[in-house]
């Protein structure tokens, strides 16, 4: 049954899948055990004749104790085993040093992604600046924000590198779901949450929204592109270069970031 899992390409996903498999086998074993006994009882202990009498018996304390203790030990073991993996994925003090930091903002019904730009620094953001033209709420007066690069529904990352995502939402709750990375994290408005992952394989994968966010919930799909480091660098240079060119061009209208294949939102006002 676990063959149906989408291909895992993340590093910690392997641990998760192992745990999944372990619980799966334990469950199947328990299920078979209980149901074999069950069916055997159903076949064996039917009333066949009138006047048949059942065995008059109220229970046995030793048995009660053992079928309390055994599941207790088993389930606690599963809890502690799971917790090791959980901590390594989720606890902030166990997050590895990121090679790339990206901000992700959910909006009904799309995903915005923000890269820090060629200066490597995100512009300051504040909730009061947030709006449809400025989904991240980048402070227009902060020079670091001028070159921040944003895309819609396309996240491009380098392979074998730890990517740290700061995640939030600008309207309702969404959930950032990367099936192949074994990542899912709710994006909650008014709150930033960190998620990290690490892809071991290049390719195109899908990003979905997993929390009901309105009738267009099912459309909230984005693409995750995992590129080799050199391809990623090339891609980034291209985006950043285009953005800088637009920034430096003397123009009164807000520049649109020359995005690859997607319609990018204007990253910041171009006035120098």
């Amino acid at each position, binding site marked *: *049954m*676990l063959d*149906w899992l*989408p291909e895992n390409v993340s590093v910690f996903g392997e641990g*998760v899948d192992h*745990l*999944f498999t372990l619980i799966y086998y334990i*469950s199947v074993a328990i*299920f078979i055990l*209980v149901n074999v*006994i*069950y069916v055997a*009882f*159903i076949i064996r*202990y*039917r*009333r066949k004749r009138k006047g*048949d*009498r*059942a*065995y008059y018996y*109220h*229970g*046995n304390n030793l048995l*009660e104790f053992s*079928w*309390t203790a055994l*599941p*207790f030990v088993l389930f*606690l073991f*599963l*809890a502690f085993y*799971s*917790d090791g993996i959980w*901590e390594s994925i989720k*606890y*902030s003090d166990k997050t590895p040093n990121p090679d790339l930091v990206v901000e992700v903002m959910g*909006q009904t019904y799309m995903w915005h992604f923000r890269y820090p730009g060629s200066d490597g620094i995100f512009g300051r953001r504040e*909730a009061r600046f947030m709006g449809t033209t400025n*989904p991240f709420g980048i402070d227009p007066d902060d020079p670091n924000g001028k070159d921040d690069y944003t895309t819609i529904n396309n996240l491009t990352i380098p392979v074998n590198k730890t990517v740290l995502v700061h995640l939030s939402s600008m*309207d*309702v709750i969404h959930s950032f*779901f990367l*099936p192949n990375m074994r*990542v*899912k*994290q709710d994006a*909650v*408005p008014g*709150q930033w*949450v960190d998620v990290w992952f690490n892809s071991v394989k290049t390719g195109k994968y899908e990003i*979905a929204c997993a*929390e*009901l966010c309105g*009738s*267009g*919930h*099912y*459309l909230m*799909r984005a693409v995750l592109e995992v590129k080799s480091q050199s391809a990623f660098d090339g891609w980034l240079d291209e985006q950043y270069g285009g953005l800088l060119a637009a920034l430096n061009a003397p123009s009164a209208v807000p520049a649109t970031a020359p995005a690859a294949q997607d319609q990018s939102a204007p990253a910041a006002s171009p006035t120098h």
Partner: protein
Amino acid sequence: MEAVLSTEKHALAGGHAHSESFIRHYIFSTDHKMIAKQFMFTAIFFLFIGGAFALFIRWQLAYPGQPIPLIGKLLPSTWVNGQGAVTAEWYTQLLTMHGTIMIFAVIIPLLVGTFGNFAIPLMIGADDMAFPFLNMVSFWLFPLAGIIMMSGFFMEGGMAAAGWTSYPPLSAIASTGQTLWIVALFLIGFSSILGGVNYITTILNMRAPGMKMFDMPMTVWAVFITAIIITIGTPVLASALSMLFMDNFLSTSFFMPAHLTVATRDMSRTAGGGQPLLWQHLFWFYSHPAVYIMILPGMGVVSDVLATFSRKPLYGYKAMVFAIIAIAFLGIIVWGHHMFQSGMNPLLGTTFMVSTMVIAVPSAIKTFNWLGTMWRGKMEFVTPMLNAVAFVSMFVIGGLSGIFMASTPVDVFIHDTYFIVGHIHYVLFGGSLFAIFAGLHYWFPKMSGRMYNERLGKLHFWITFISFNCTFFPMHILGIGGMMRRIYDPTVYDFLKPFQPMNEFITISAIVLGFAQFILVYNLLHSWFYGKKAKRNPWRANTLEWQAPSPPPHGNFDTELRVYRGPYEYSSPDSVQDYLPQTVSPEELQEQNERHRQRLAQQEHAQPVA
């Protein structure tokens, strides 16, 4: 004296007063049995509404964008598009109303409203509930709430569409239908609390002489503990609903952060500073215990049915009682397992995982004790027993899938996928609803005074059992494949396209499952009027309700009751018969045994001649 009075009343009622007594008897009744029937018929009505919604949902998932067969063209244009296919807006309303109706208008009213009302006074030997008037109010709030909730159909924007969990901000910036949903749930909660207080008082104060707490059948124990959970949990839901109502209506900010970008609503009056996660904590503080409200009474019914038809004492009666108490207690401290991916501190994920794993233990205890009950029994597979046996097996699957989700790292992947939908339905349909089917057939003779049709009962069981598994088991696989719940069209995603044949299979099974329920209704309705007349104790059961006439008159019992023993003395060596009712005194027992022996002896004499 009393007799005189009542004949006088009858004489007076003879003329014009007849319609009034009809209203008192059938509509604003304070008799617990009539109220139980009212709950039952209203809930079964809602079962079909909720079921129809589910089939619309399933149609869309299997055949996205294709017109609904036969009736698609007849539906209003706010629901379907020009071709007669479900729209995304209506789809979202459907899934919200399906969940809400099934939980609050079907399962809870059937388990708590129907069985609680019908069985509690009868099983403890009381003539009615402690507060008959409250009981009546408790019922009438329920259809009222149902009408309010459904009236969203006629409002602009339709019914509520934020899921049965209604997470804000989505639910706080919603249409009128959402406000109606909030008001309706508030009323249903009120109804629950009235019922809960009533059950607790009745069980504590009105047991027949001689009946100790540990002489109570499991159904009574289960409803008792359930009632306690209801009275603890529901006020928290009520407070959360009040806040959500104000966020929606008065632009308060209990759950609303500042500076949301919302196109559909003017947010300038919303100050912000609220926390969306607060709702989730409050909601699940009620709704996790609520899932036990929806299973504990079922467990009680199943325990009684299994013991009766295994002709054996319930295995580990006290362990069963303590397991229920443990579930109720632990159930209050596991709500966070619904929030592992919500953005709450992952440290809390760890603690809630541990408590959730621990709560699986009493569930395991109950399962083993049910097996123990059947061990060396003499089982009779009539319809109630078939449904109860199915319950145990389905509950095992639901419990085991719970373990996957309790394991936080695994839950990262399966949270908000069809795996959860599979889990819910194995516990709520495979569990609660099969227990309800068991109970409906088990008490049908007492309720109606007639027997249901055994062949139809079995037919209904087998079709339901098979199509249930075909419908819901594959959902686990969809979840493993990553299919998100509550999506309108899975084919938008490349990684979900391979699952379309499975979605079609599920939908076909679901249609069979839905239509099989007409067998149940036909059987119940037809037998209610034309069934074979039922004896007092057709199942040869021990508990008190079977000492009353079928159906019991107003005031229930025609004999003085005294309880001498526990409810599960089946196949006791003390009795010649294989059952020993709670009310039979030791002297009566001797006489009975004597009579029985003589009869047996006579039969043996008679046989060779014949």
